[in-house]
């Protein structure tokens, strides 16, 4: 399930809509400290169903909504959409007729959430389902956060086992 396109609006420091078209191969994301690079990773994990606020560096999920800056007022909604290629059989059986899968997650400052799968409303559970068995679930070995690389070597035997189970 290759990444095709990521749209971010109102999520963390992405006040205005940003669209990223992902090419094949290796993409390097660069820029000064605090410009929003790790926030892009957060947006990807969030739209893939990340529920741990701590993993997103927040204290409550509301922290991911643009809270204002530089004369701009806070926004009331964060929305992230991810377009995936359905190209390798990792996706659930029921989606096999789709060549592409689009996930959308929305959070309103009121606390309401909305989730969409190919523009149809769905539950968070359906989003999680997409990634089961693909190695891209919650604590995937395919996502390494800033500052975490050193701790992996000193992980507990149970944590190390978990990485291997994910791949099994």
């Amino acid at each position, binding site marked *: 399930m290759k990444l095709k396109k990521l749209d971010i609006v109102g999520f*963390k420091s992405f006040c205005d809509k940003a669209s990223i078209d992902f090419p094949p191969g290796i993409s390097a994301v660069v820029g000064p400290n605090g410009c929003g690079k790790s926030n892009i990773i957060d947006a990807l994990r969030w739209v893939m169903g990340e529920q741990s606020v701590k993993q997103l560096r927040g204290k409550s999920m509301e922290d991911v909504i643009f809270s204002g800056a530089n004369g701009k007022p806070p926004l009331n909604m964060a929305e992230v959409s991810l377009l995936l290629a359905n190209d390798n059989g990792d996706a659930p059986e029921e989606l096999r007729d789709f060549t592409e899968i689009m996930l959308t997650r929305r959070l309103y400052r009121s606390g309401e959430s909305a989730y969409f799968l190919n523009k149809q409303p769905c539950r968070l559970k359906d989003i999680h389902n997409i990634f089961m068995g693909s190695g891209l679930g919650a604590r995937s070995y395919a996502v390494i956060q800033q500052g975490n690389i050193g701790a992996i070597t000193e992980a507990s035997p149970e944590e190390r086992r978990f990485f291997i189970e994910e791949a099994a």
Partner: protein
Amino acid sequence: TQERFIETFNLINAKLKEVFPRLFEGGSATLVLIEPNKPLETGVELMIHLPGKKLTRLSLLSGGEKALSAIAFIFSIFLIKPASFCLLDEIDAPLDDANVFRFNDLLKLIGQNSQIVMITHNKRTMEFADTLFGITMEQKGISKLVSVKFERAPEAQ
């Protein structure tokens, strides 16, 4: 299932035997089942032997050695079961120039089967990438994407 875990464990262990010496220019690393008779619940230990050094506690390793060992472990898993894409946030930060080079050389291999999104401040890593995405904050506090796409000159760089 039990056989599948053991089979995957063995495949990853074999791959680690290739990947580790490639990153460290020698040495070896081995995964060990703590309780081989309880494959469904056993923890997994990692034994590391750095080239020329003695088998030692993982905690005594340097910052860079710990990072490169983690990369060896994670990349071994990737090469056995590639995820469609992987997201790496500044994992090259603790590495010296020589290790950054070997890391990126191996990353190219991973990039053949998986899409990679790598956040980095390292110029070498940027050179190895196929595409660069620049993020800026011309307006303070507001992120903006600037796409910078390479056209590579054929090996004339």
